[in-house]
């Protein structure tokens, strides 16, 4: 019984760690994509204003 509980706890913990990693990784990747897009876009706009 106690062995089963340990196995289940390990599995639950692994599941939790993976879900947390997935959520954070998704946020970082989405944030980075938006951030770099806006950066490049703002540079492009400024250059267009400056040089036409």
């Amino acid at each position: 019984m106690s062995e089963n509980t340990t196995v289940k706890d390990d599995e639950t913990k692994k599941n939790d760690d993976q879900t947390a990693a997935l959520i954070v990784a998704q946020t970082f990747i989405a944030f980075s994509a938006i951030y770099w897009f806006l950066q490049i876009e703002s540079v492009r706009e400024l250059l267009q204003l400056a040089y036409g």
Partner: protein
Amino acid sequence: MPVSFFSAYSRTIAASAVIVLSIWVFYGGLSAAVYPGLLGFFEWSETTWFGVIGKTWGAAFAFIEAIHLIALAVLGGSIIASDGRVLGLVLTDVSARTVIDRTHTLFAWSLAVLLFTGVFMACGVATKIYYLQVFWFKMLALGAGMLFHYFIRKPLYQYDLSELNPVVVKMTAVSSLLVWFLVAAAGRWIGYSG
């Protein structure tokens, strides 16, 4: 033994809460409320030993900046080697476990040097960077990077990677590379601002 939803997903809930809180603090109203109160701290940090040396002795500041860059190279090396290995890009014939475990010490040392030299530099130009949005963005990215490294990436990489969902593992590796690159890029941009 039945496990409640909260304890079964404690890390997931904590991580989600930190994300929401960070976005709220940074982009919501809270930062505006806290911001004025921090000026005193930044003014004080310029009067400390670090601040006085950094402000009056240009060569010392530049030298510490260079040490900051050397530590950045080591941090980059440890991240590129370990996350690159997880992504199957470098050291593919060395076990991922070995690369992850052995580069972690290097990461920790280089981060310690980066933080120490970073605090020194920040003290020298404290009242300038206080007004720079990119400085605060870097602090957000740095905080996110450190929390991510120690509370998400490290626990995840402690498992046998072949037993984990490969998509999650690869996304974690990509995020790690992205976040440290973002921290470094934001750091460089502080130099161009103000």
